[in-house]
Every structure is written in structure tokens, then in C-alpha cells.
């Protein structure tokens, strides 16, 4: 019986499933006024009873997705017990995707032509170069940790700690072999590189709001801060085996991450209505309403039509190269984790 299987539940993945579903539940309110389920609509449509009905059905789908994800996370399928965590998230996301696509299909008949007007504010300047240094700093830290580990190999503890409890004491170890130690560091480096790639891209390769919008809508700045905070958190984790007590710094970063996440949820719906109706992208470029493919658009990152933050412009060849470069260390890390698990 599922409800008696609480002892087998995966608490971390259950929280991930609930957090994802909560965000997806809010998403219809986060879109710009002239967009509904990634479809360009007249702003009045968002106030109509038809839209309210579609949102109601979509949200029932999201609740169903959370339920399905939790059932898997609670160990309802013993055959995949080892993978019940990631599987619960996959199930939740798949059901959410179905709900989104159905809502999008229901919105399509109300679609209007997207505006061909584009606007750029020439008084806005590139973000200061010091922000690029902020993005790169954790990667430099990671490189220093790798060098230190190589230079002080004999001083490293054996077994090598890879996880710490809230009391600051290690509670999980691996054998001290080059493959294991550098594998862990490679995995953390890959995650940090991926976060740095997105953080830098949001800052320098994304379409900016006009000065007027920028002044009253702080969402992009907080979103970027969230990615940078996560990058610093990962880099701080990598220094733990060196004997530093980084818990105070980690706690501060975690508090900031939590505060900025909550702030995003609060300001997202409030700010969305005050922006211009669309995000200056053509409907045709949005594949399944989620993937942006527009070779004629110089932006590497564009604001999502449905959801939080930005997405990649898959129409650019350099996007694929950058994704491959950022994902390669992650692939290596995954292979490494698999090898340890086996």
C-alpha cells in the first residue's frame, strides 16, 4: 500500500517534486499580458472566462503531476527503488508537460498575430565588466582546488569525504583514488561551469528590457543573482575536503538563495502585468511553446514565454557548441557516479 510505504519515501526528491509543481502551478500568472500558454493572445483574453477555465484544467493537471511524482518518490515501484528519486521528478515533469501542451492547444483558437515591432533602448549600456569577474571567480576557485588536490595528494584523507551533515562532520566517503577524487571535483566543476554559462549568458547574451522596464521590474536581476549564488555554493562545496569550515558562508548563500527564490515568486506575478504585452519573439519560432529556434535572432538567450527566466535560442550554431561544452563535464560526472554506485 502506497500510504504505508512512508519509510521508503525519498524526502529530498519529494520536496523537489513539490517545489517544481508549486512553481508550475503559478506559471500562468508569470507570463506577459499578451501571452497565454506561450501563445500570443489579446490582453483581454487573459481576463476572459475561457482563459480562466483553461487555467483551471491546467492546474488540475499540475496537481495530478505532483501526485504521480510523489507516488513514485514514495517507493510505489520497488523494481526501480534505486532510481525512484529521479524517476519521480521525470514522471511529474512528463504529466506537467502534457497538461501544458493540452492547455496550449486549447488556447490556440484565440491566437492573434504577434507584433512585428521591436524596440531597443540605446541609452542602456552593457553590464559592468566586473560582473563577468563575479561569474568567473568560482571557476577560478575550482581550478585552484584541483591544483591544490594534485599538489597535496598525500595529505588528503583516505577515505576521502564527499558529504557532510548539518553538524559539519563528514558522513559519506569514497576510496582515495585519482578517479574518485578528481571525478567528484569534475562533477562539481561541471555543475559550476553550467551555472556560470547560464549566468554569463543571461548577463551578456540575452535581450535586455528597456530602461523604463528595467527600473520597475527587478526580476531579471534577482534571477541572475540566484544562478550566481548557486554557482558560489557549488564552488564552496568543492573546498570542503581541504579542511576549511565554509558552513557560515554556505548558510549565508543558502539563505540568500531561499530569499531570492521567494522574492521571485512574489514579484513575478506582480511585475508581469506591468511589462509590454509580448517578449518580441515570433510565435512560429516557439516549438511546442517551449523551445525557441530563430536563426535570425542574435540573442542567445530569450525570455521564456511560459515559466521563469530565459531559454536558449536553439537556432544559433554557437548555442549547440556551448551546450556541448557545458554538458561534457556533467556527462563525465554522471558516468563517474554510475561507476561508484556499481
Amino acid at each position, binding site marked *: 500500500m502506497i500510504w504505508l510505504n512512508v519509510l521508503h519515501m525519498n524526502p529530498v526528491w519529494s520536496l523537489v517534486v513539490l517545489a517544481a509543481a508549486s512553481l508550475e502551478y503559478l506559471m500562468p500568472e508569470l507570463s506577459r499580458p499578451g501571452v497565454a500558454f506561450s501563445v500570443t493572445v489579446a490582453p483581454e483574453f487573459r481576463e476572459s472566462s475561457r482563459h480562466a477555465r483553461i487555467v483551471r484544467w491546467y492546474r488540475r493537471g499540475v496537481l495530478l503531476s505532483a501526485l504521480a511524482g510523489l507516488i513514485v518518490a514514495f517507493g510505489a515501484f520497488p523494481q526501480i527503488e534505486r532510481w525512484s528519486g529521479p524517476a519521480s521528478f521525470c514522471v511529474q515533469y512528463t504529466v506537467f508537460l502534457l497538461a501544458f501542451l493540452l492547455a496550449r492547444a486549447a488556447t490556440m483558437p484565440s491566437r492573434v498575430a504577434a507584433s512585428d515591432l521591436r*524596440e531597443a533602448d540605446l541609452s542602456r549600456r552593457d553590464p559592468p565588466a566586473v560582473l563577468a569577474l563575479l561569474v568567473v571567480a568560482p571557476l577560478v576557485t575550482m581550478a585552484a582546488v584541483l591544483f591544490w588536490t594534485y599538489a597535496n595528494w598525500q595529505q588528503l584523507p583516505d577515505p576521502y569525504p564527499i558529504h557532510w551533515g548539518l553538524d559539519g562532520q563528514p558522513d559519506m566517503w569514497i576510496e582515495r583514488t585519482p578517479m574518485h577524487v578528481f571525478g567528484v571535483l569534475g562533477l562539481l566543476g561541471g555543475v559550476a561551469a553550467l551555472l556560470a554559462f547560464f549566468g554569463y549568458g543571461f548577463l551578456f547574451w*540575452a535581450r535586455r528590457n528597456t530602461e523604463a522596464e528595467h527600473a520597475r521590474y527587478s526580476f531579471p536581476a534577482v534571477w541572475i543573482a540566484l544562478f550566481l549564488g548557486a554557482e558560489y555554493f557549488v564552488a564552496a562545496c568543492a573546498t570542503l575536503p581541504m579542511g576549511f569550515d565554509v558552513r557560515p558562508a554556505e548558510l549565508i548563500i543558502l539563505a540568500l538563495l531561499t530569499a531570492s527564490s521567494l522574492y521571485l515568486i512574489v514579484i513575478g506575478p506582480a511585475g508581469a502585468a506591468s511589462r509590454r504585452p509580448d517578449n518580441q519573439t515570433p510565435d512560429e519560432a516557439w516549438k511546442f511553446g517551449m523551445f525557441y529556434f530563430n536563426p*535570425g535572432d542574435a540573442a542567445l538567450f530569450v525570455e521564456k514565454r511560459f515559466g521563469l527566466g530565459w531559454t536558449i535560442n536553439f537556432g544559433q550554431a554557437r548555442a549547440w557548441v556551448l551546450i556541448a561544452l557545458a554538458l561534457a563535464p556533467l556527462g563525465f560526472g554522471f558516468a563517474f557516479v554510475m561507476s561508484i554506485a556499481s
Partner: protein
Amino acid sequence: MSTSRKAIRIDLSSAIPVYRQIADQIRAMLVARDFNPGERLPTVRQVAVDLGVNHNTVAEAYRNLAEEGWLSLERGRGALVVSRSTPVANPKVRNAFAQRLRNLIAQVRAAGVPPQVIRSEFEEAATALLGREGKGSGR
């Protein structure tokens, strides 16, 4: 939605090529002294990203303005507004201007825009771009 004085707006469905729309609007700002000599315009990349168009389109607009003597282009650093001495217009240029103006007025009048609106728009544009420059001087 409020529009900044230094914002450019393009229409992708217009018959006028996008690079010309960009160049025309930046030129209008330069004539109105919204940008002074020594100021920098954003980089080609940034304007292209913000407008959602190809880099080459914005580069072409900047090149045109540089050829007209408004900008000095520096790779990777954007475009520098330079002080430009006003050339003496020859009769050919003045005649072409007069002809284009007449054609434009005829076009919008034919489209139903009332004469008083045409007059006020014309005066507003002249005031915005020329200020008090040349007021009272004859041909």
C-alpha cells in the same frame, strides 16, 4: 508603456529594410543632438540582441552612418559619435529633398491624413530635429 527618448523602434513587416529603419532613427537622434560627440552607442551585438535581428543588419546601419561621417567604428567597443562638420548642400540635394517631401505629403494626404495634422507633424518633427537652428534664415 513609456518609450525612452533614445529608444529605436523597428517594424519587421515594413517595406523599408530594417537596416535603414535603424540608420534613419539613429541619424535623427544624432541630428537632434541626443548623442553628443565623444559618446558611445551600444555595440552592434547588443543592439542586434535587443532588437532580435541579425548582427549584419545592425552592422550595415552603423556602417552607413560611419560613411556619412556620424560615427567612428571601433571593433568590439561600439561606435563613437564624432563631431561632424555640416556639408554645404548643393542644389541637387535640396531639389531631391523638396521632391521627396512633396511625395511624402501627397502620399499621406491620399491616405486620408488631414492637412492640419500633416502641418503640425511637420512642424513638430522640424522642431524636434532642428530646434531653433537656422530659424529666420532664408534660402
